[in-house]
């Protein structure tokens, strides 16, 4: 799954709006997702295909309905790649601080 596809999928306000809607309420049908949007049903279908191709949206059949779910895993992989090491740095800094403070107590 290419990271380019994820960035391309996210580089569009309409697609981010669809992701926001799934983030608020996960597992929606195409009909539900279209409600109250200025986009045509065809446009939503096209955007969903791009989001699914990037694996940030996953669809599943449930009975007669096809439900769409937000999949946070690829976005998390991106965060890990560029942010993970900063979190690690903070943890190391905290450990150093603790060591220093505890040494002062003695």
């Amino acid at each position, binding site marked *: 799954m290419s990271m380019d596809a994820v960035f391309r999928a996210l580089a569009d306000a309409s697609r981010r709006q669809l992701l926001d809607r799934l983030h608020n309420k996960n*597992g929606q049908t195409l009909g539900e997702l279209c409600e109250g949007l200025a986009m045509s049903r065809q446009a939503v279908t096209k955007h969903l295909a791009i989001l699914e191709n990037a694996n940030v949206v996953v669809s*599943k059949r449930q009975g007669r309905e096809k439900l769409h779910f937000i999949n*946070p895993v690829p976005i998390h992989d991106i965060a890990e790649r560029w942010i993970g090491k900063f979190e690690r740095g903070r943890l190391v800094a905290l450990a150093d601080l603790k060591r220093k403070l505890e040494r002062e107590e003695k």
Partner: protein
Amino acid sequence: MSTTFVYVTYIRTTPQKLWDALTKPEFIKQYWFNMTQQSEWKTGASWKMLFSDGRVADVGEVLEIDPPRRLVLKWANEFRPELKDEGPTRCVYDLEQDGDVMRLTITHTSERDGAKVIEAVSGGWPRVLSSLKSLLETGKPMPSSHNRPAT
């Protein structure tokens, strides 16, 4: 009504290696915040998720098992009373080959609408899956995967 979360990741590995990574305690420990799971891995067997100090985090049962394709667990939180009260959830692992990669789908469902337990129990899923992918593809887990998030 129910609450469902779906997670999908693609991992460059074999069906058997992925299956082992999901069911072998010493393997699980490497990518699951130092936690591990215990079960005899057969239908009807009990299942447990343990903290590194041995305390029980979650309990459940193997509902369905078809190595190396599908695993269905009954999964209930055990250490937070407000989540325990929401009752068990159902967690389905589907492993599919897609060319030279494996597609792993986790579908985690509670019969309750807006269940907190799903968000809490599965709150760490993206981290767990990133770390699992990293471990299988590079031999190293994610550095930030050593502790379970404060849930």
